[in-house]
């Protein structure tokens, strides 16, 4: 087959769930074993197709949470109450379950590490997943590109990979913004991402950062508008919209 010439697998392939672990009350990490996996780039996603015994079928895109250098292929998925709960998915997906996977895909929302300019990341809720893959790739390749992450979530308990992202030995500047509630002694940002946070946590347009914004549609559009309004070239602002505002 002409597999070598094509960027990754373009057809559905079988994958097995190796492990499922809970990250937050609404997010879980799924470790997959895909025998035909060709590797991926940070920021890419896969399409997942699940068929349950009762006929229920779901197909959704999930960003890859692992770096290309990680030994395991990992997805982190948020369970949103969107009226599509089926008896099958209401239970935890279990190790040993089989599903179909297509990808990796997405050449647009990718950070390889050789792009010009510092790396500016904005995550809304589970939008942190592909950005986390980028940061892991940066660390795994000892890349010294300056990197900043602004991560907005409802509460502290909704922050995924909190320990990893707030590691004091990391050279990534991470700002957490909690929009719904925060601890009394919270020193991070309180409320939605606003001008003050953008002033302190982002590079100005003349530093020409490459900007990745991922999360609910409303969040992505608001941040994207603000960054363009601050003079960043639209071509430097890359977006991936996951769904409605939680």
């Amino acid at each position, binding site marked *: 087959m002409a597999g070598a010439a094509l960027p990754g697998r373009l057809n559905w392939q079988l994958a097995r769930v190796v492990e499922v672990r809970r990250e937050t009350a609404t997010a879980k990490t799924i470790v997959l074993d895909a025998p035909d996996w060709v590797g991926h780039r940070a920021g890419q996603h896969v399409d997942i197709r699940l068929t349950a015994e*009762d*006929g229920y079928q779901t197909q959704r895109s999930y960003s890859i949470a692992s770096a290309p250098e990680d030994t395991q292929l990992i997805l982190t998925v948020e369970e949103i109450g969107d*009226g599509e709960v*089926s008896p099958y998915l209401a239970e935890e997906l279990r190790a040993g379950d089989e599903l179909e996977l297509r990808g990796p895909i997405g050449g647009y929302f990718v950070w390889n590490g050789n792009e010009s300019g510092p790396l500016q990341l904005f995550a809304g809720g589970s939008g942190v997943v592909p950005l986390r893959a980028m940061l892991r790739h940066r660390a795994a390749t000892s890349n010294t590109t300056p990197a900043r992450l602004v991560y907005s979530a409802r509460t502290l308990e909704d922050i995924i990979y909190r320990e990893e992202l707030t590691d004091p030995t990391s050279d990534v500047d991470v700002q957490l913004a909690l929009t719904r509630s925060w601890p009394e002694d919270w020193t991070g940002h309180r409320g939605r991402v606003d001008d003050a946070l953008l002033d302190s946590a982002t590079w100005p347009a003349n530093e020409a950062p490459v900007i990745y914004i991922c999360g609910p549609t409303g969040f992505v559009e608001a941040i994207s508008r603000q960054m363009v309004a601050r003079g960043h070239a639209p071509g430097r602002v890359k977006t991936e919209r996951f769904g409605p505002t939680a």
Partner: protein
Amino acid sequence: MPPGQYVTLDFPVLSAGPTPRPHLDDWSFTIDGAVESAVTWTWTELMRLPAETVTQDIHCVTKWSKLDTTWRGVSLDLLFDGVTTTGAYLTAWSDGGYTTNLPLADVRDGKAWVAYEFDGQPLAPEHGGPARLLVPHLYFWKSAKWVRGLTLTVDDEPGFWEGYGYHNYGDPWREQRYQGD
């Protein structure tokens, strides 16, 4: 249960576009096309017509079925009373541009309604409110949300999903999901 369906207790929202939100003052329902003369009802006029409460199972082409759903609306038999037509088919059309086609026979004889209440409450916008077509014996894409009229046609004219490879008729009991089924 029709073949290939599973029962859900939810009411999934499927949509091809933004939810229309018309003002009831501007709303009307029209039967036109291959008819002797078109008829139209304002919202107020629709609300004055005798309505029925019906309990039906509904079946979506995406495989979920919802049993014993309760609707209130006006029977199409009543709306077609007095309408003279040479058309054997119709295209239902909606706010937002959605269309679906049906044989006229499939909306007569107690098989179809313009429904404006679900489960005893005004039909929610995401489920097709203020009013939707209700044709429960066919896959639910035929029950056009946000319906504003039926255009009678001499020839069968594929609607939105029918034009993209979905079955022209859509009988869940013969599992007619896609063209060629």
